[in-house]
């Protein structure tokens, strides 16, 4: 794949997914299905319909409370409307039907589109994603740090949401140099945040996430690894092994669009 042309998009074009696996599927099968079908299908089918970045993460299961999602993903589209417009294509509608096999959609079907944190005071609204600055950014390129944490037992949900809100407002008003994008979503029992930056700003992005991690029990905290899918739809290919590469920044073939 040739070096990709930067393709920055608005944070309003983001979709923030928190997936809970289907109760009829064990985690091993869930990982197998997402790696062999779901994630590569998204990565190969949806760039033609406007997908610009896709960053899926499998959340480690040891010590993960049930209220923390089993998987997260950020998806960035060409425009805020592109996600909905994509459903006019048959390929995207077929892809969307994959969700029913893998996820508990009662728990997973939450608000995905973020709103600005600007003007927000106090606690975050539960399950409402927020973007923390307005800049366009190309999340497929650069460095993305991701934190997923559980609510400590000694912290009420309301206080947990308030602390997350305080952290988000602080990052909004005092953004570290080199950081050009940040998103957060907080439920009653978990928080998930992503910071996007140039590689040189990674230490300051990590430090910023440390402040949020202090209010939670980190379950996942790492950089998302860039990965290009070398196979095509009809190739003899078993899929991705998400047990060895659980946190990814998929390098999409955006030139196909």
């Amino acid at each position, binding site marked *: 794949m040739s070096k990709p042309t930067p393709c920055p998009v608005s944070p309003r074009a983001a979709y923030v997914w928190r997936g809970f696996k289907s109760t009829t599927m064990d985690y091993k099968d869930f990982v197998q299905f997402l790696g062999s079908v779901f994630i590569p299908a998204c990565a190969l089918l949806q760039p033609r319909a406007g997908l610009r970045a896709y960053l899926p993460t499998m959340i480690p299961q040891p010590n993960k409370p049930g209220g923390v999602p089993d998987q997260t993903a950020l998806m960035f589209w060409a425009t805020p409307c592109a996600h909905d417009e994509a459903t006019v294509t048959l390929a995207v509608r077929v892809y969307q039907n994959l*969700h029913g096999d893998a996820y508990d959609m009662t728990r997973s079907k939450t608000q995905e589109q973020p709103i600005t944190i600007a003007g927000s005071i106090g606690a975050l609204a539960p399950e409402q994603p927020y973007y923390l600055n307005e800049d366009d950014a190309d999340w497929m390129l650069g460095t993305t740090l991701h934190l997923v944490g559980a609510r400590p037992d000694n912290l009420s949900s309301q206080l947990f949401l308030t602390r997350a809100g305080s952290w988000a407002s602080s990052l909004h008003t005092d953004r570290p140099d080199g950081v050009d994008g940040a998103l957060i979503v907080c439920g009653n029992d978990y928080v998930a945040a992503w910071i996007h930056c140039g590689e040189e700003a990674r230490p300051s992005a990590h430090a910023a996430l440390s402040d949020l991690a202090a209010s939670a029990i980190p379950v996942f905290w790492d950089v998302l690894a860039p990965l290009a899918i070398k196979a095509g*739809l*009809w190739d003899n290919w078993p899929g991705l092994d998400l047990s060895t590469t659980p946190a990814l920044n998929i390098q999409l073939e955006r030139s196909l669009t």
Partner: protein
Amino acid sequence: MDFRISAKAMRVFRGFRGGAFVSDNAGFLKIVGQTFMPGTPYMLRGGGLASYTSGILTNVPDSDVPQEFALIGYSSADRWQHLMTDTLQGRMYNSTHGGVYDMSVGRSGAQFPSALSGLDANDCGPFYTWGEVADWQTGSICVYFGQANGKTTGTFRIATRTAIGALKQGDYDCLICSPGDTTMIVWAHCPALGAAPIDWTALQAISTPILSTTAQRILWEEAEPPLQTFTAPKVMNWIFVRDERYFLQ
């Protein structure tokens, strides 16, 4: 090119509403017509799909009656196996059904048929007769969907075989039957367009017809196969360009 395939390479599908669609008939008809049916040739044509004949009932009389039924033909059974296990496109197609269909045991699913002549009394899957090799995308397809008359528990499948044996083949070259405990779905193929319909009288002796029709040809001429809106029961034979790499030259 020879696009004829063995009946042993045809997946015979029965579909029951599931998931959120159990109590949402309109939503089921919409997703089947706008996504699943056009999505089948769209997804599989490039991998060796040979034919696709799909049918829908808009109102099923009871929960034992499958609302969707289809023949999905591949260039070979091995090709199907390869597609569904080794390729992303095949795995993806195979994984799209769980949110829409009731996939529990004994409900929705597909099987390859066996030759009627080789069945034993305990076989209960689909079967074929009259001939094995046909090009189901071309020619005419006559379809009968019947529900058993009265109480027939345990006997209807055997009665179906006997009744099939009494049908007159005429110019038809292959018949495939999906027998159930209380329903039968029968497709008969004739190489000629506009063939005279099959006389189903022998089947009507043991069943009441829910649907008896000829498949309507649906041409895929644009970038995507045409979407379908269902207001009445319908059987469609999808016409698409096949990938010659997978067929005999």
